[in-house]
């Protein structure tokens, strides 16, 4: 029985140890609710050829990871909410220098007003930062996703940093039965990191000035690397299953959508509630299904389009809000529905607001009554 924070830290420590025959493990960390216990746990681990630097800010925490990764070490950090926003300048550096840093984000509302509870607005603000983003729905997935993250980050086809997102408190502080791994298994799954552009003794510069045509080429390469994530992820899934006996989720997971007249689309823990509601409503004769988006970057266009095929009504649930627009997930997913389908956005659960089955039933009722899709609807405000 462990929390999401401890699951993340255990996976990071094991991944760190697995690089002992490589250039070791080095992490920069700084506390912030709800990620603190992840960094605390990591600091107390005994990691052979590993070191955790306790810095003075999140901005510096990521800078340590950037330096350590450039020097060829495996690196990890964790933060959330305003910590992630404060860190954001160096978050982009890790991506643009193509360094395979792994970070667990304990999703937290961005203040002010100050609030320590969860929503996805922090990591979604950084959706354009060039990182791969994975959203988890339970502690087992957090543990597994951290190991998967190192694998796809360090793949030479990708070389991209990976954000593993877990909702603060809902996962970070809730203890559930979680299967961990043996070090020997992790050693097998994660071979030593070989960073092709690591700084050693060759006079090489990382991060020099780019003229317009060069930065265009670099962005195009970076975008192409994002496109390589699918095959890297698929292969890692197969290896993971062979070594650990569990199958990490596909980028998009569908639940009872085959004959669905309405699909609920969500990320993270809300999908667990949505699936429960699907079972209940199906028991009452309503043909509904649920679709969980596990990977937000790269965005799973093909898988989501396939999941939407033949479904006339889609309710996209966002635990975030792009103010003046609507939910970020809705914004990206709505274009993938069947022509003529009604795609309605529901914004809910901000700042840790409870998302209960009756809220999701309310969305289903509302979406089934629509003749055309409207602007985003807030559900459960002030409850």
């Amino acid at each position: 029985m462990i929390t999401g924070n401890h699951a993340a830290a255990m996976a990071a420590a094991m991944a760190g140890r697995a690089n002992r025959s490589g250039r070791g493990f080095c992490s920069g960390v700084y506390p912030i609710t709800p990620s603190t216990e992840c960094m605390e746990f990591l600091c107390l681990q005994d990691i052979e050829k590993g070191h955790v630097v306790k810095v003075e800010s999140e901005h510096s925490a990521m800078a340590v990871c950037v330096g350590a990764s450039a020097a060829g070490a495996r690196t990890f950090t964790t933060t959330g909410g305003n910590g992630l926003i404060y860190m954001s300048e160096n978050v982009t550096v890790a991506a643009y220098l193509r360094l395979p840093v792994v970070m667990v984000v304990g999703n937290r509302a961005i203040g002010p007003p100050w609030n320590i509870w969860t929503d996805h607005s922090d990591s979604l603000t950084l959706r354009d930062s060039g990182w791969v983003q994975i959203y988890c729905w339970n502690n087992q997935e957090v543990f597994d996703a951290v190991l998967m993250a190192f694998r796809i980050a360090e793949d030479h086809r990708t070389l991209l940093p990976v954000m593993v997102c877990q909702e603060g408190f809902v996962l970070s502080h809730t203890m559930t039965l979680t299967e961990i791994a043996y070090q020997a298994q992790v050693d097998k799954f994660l071979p030593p990191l070989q960073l092709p552009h690591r700084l050693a003794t060759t006079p090489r510069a990382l991060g020099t000035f780019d003229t317009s045509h060069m930065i265009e080429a670099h962005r195009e390469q970076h975008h192409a690397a994002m496109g390589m994530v699918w095959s890297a992820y698929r292969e890692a899934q197969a290896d993971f299953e062979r070594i650990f006996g569990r199958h990490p989720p596909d980028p998009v997971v569908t639940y009872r959508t085959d004959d669905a007249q309405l699909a609920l689309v969500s990320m993270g823990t809300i999908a667990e509630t949505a699936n429960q509601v699907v079972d209940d409503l199906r028991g009452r004769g309503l043909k509904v299904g649920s679709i969980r988006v596990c990977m937000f970057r790269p965005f799973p266009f093909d898988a989501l389009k396939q999941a939407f095929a033949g479904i006339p009504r889609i309710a996209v649930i966002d635990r975030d809000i792009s103010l003046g627009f609507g939910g970020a997930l809705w914004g990206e997913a709505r274009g993938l529905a069947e022509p003529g389908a009604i795609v309605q956005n529901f914004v809910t659960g901000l700042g840790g607001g409870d998302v209960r089955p009756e809220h999701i039933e309310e969305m289903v009722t509302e979406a089934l009554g629509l003749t055309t899709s409207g602007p985003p609807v807030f559900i459960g405000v002030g409850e």
Partner: protein
Amino acid sequence: MKGSESPHYRRLLRPGNTNCGGCGMSVAFQMFRRSIGETNIQLVIPACCAAVAAGGFPYNAYEAPVLLSTFASAASTASGMAQVARLNGENTRVVCWAGDGGTYDIGLASLSGAAERNEDILFVCYDNEIYGNTGGQRSSATPVGAGASNIIKGKLEPKKDIMGIMAAHGIPYAATISLANPDDSKRKFERALREKGFRFLLILAPCPTGWKSDPSKTVELVRLAVRSGLYPVIEIENGRRWIINIEPDFSRADLERYLSLQRRFKKSEIRPDDMRRAIDLLWEKLRALAGCIT
């Protein structure tokens, strides 16, 4: 030459880089590379003229591995690199090379953090007393009376005491480097490269473009700043033992010539006599520190 110069670092900063003629930072680089010997170094350069000097991708004006960090992050980025070198038993010396903005201002928090942790880093600040890269705005290193592109007349506030700040961290070694005193400087660069833990070097680096001085007068300006007592040449061991390396003559003529060789003090009309009191107080303090605390 053999034994004192590694073939790697014959030209740490290669010719053809973008620095202006008479750039104090360029001179500092040439001095520094003479002290490197056979040591492997890695550079971390935050946003500043030295970052621009690296050149555009895929070129690199430096004959050493270099990471161009974000403005505020030189010391923390270097911390990661130095820790990995240590974990792998390598004697690589990680060197931050930052301007005054990246040291006194935006970089101060990460600099303080790395110094407090006593990371195995050499942090070099070339201090041209302005944001040179962006066209000469004031920084907290700009001295009283100096003009800047965002000040109407001249700066009213005194320069921040960065050496005092670094000494207060109790780091193993801190020193100021004079471009006009190469022997003293070479000794300090060598010692700073040799010592373990956090080391800090401050270099007064005239910027002909920003100071509106003649490029040929860069070293002369430093000589005058040293002789007049404006720029103390000192070293500090473990934050406790202060040593005065060069005794100024405090001459009014040197100060006058220092002001006359550059146009940045023109608008404020600051005179040597206006600066005398501050110099006296500075040296009173330095002598107390150098005399009483050992």
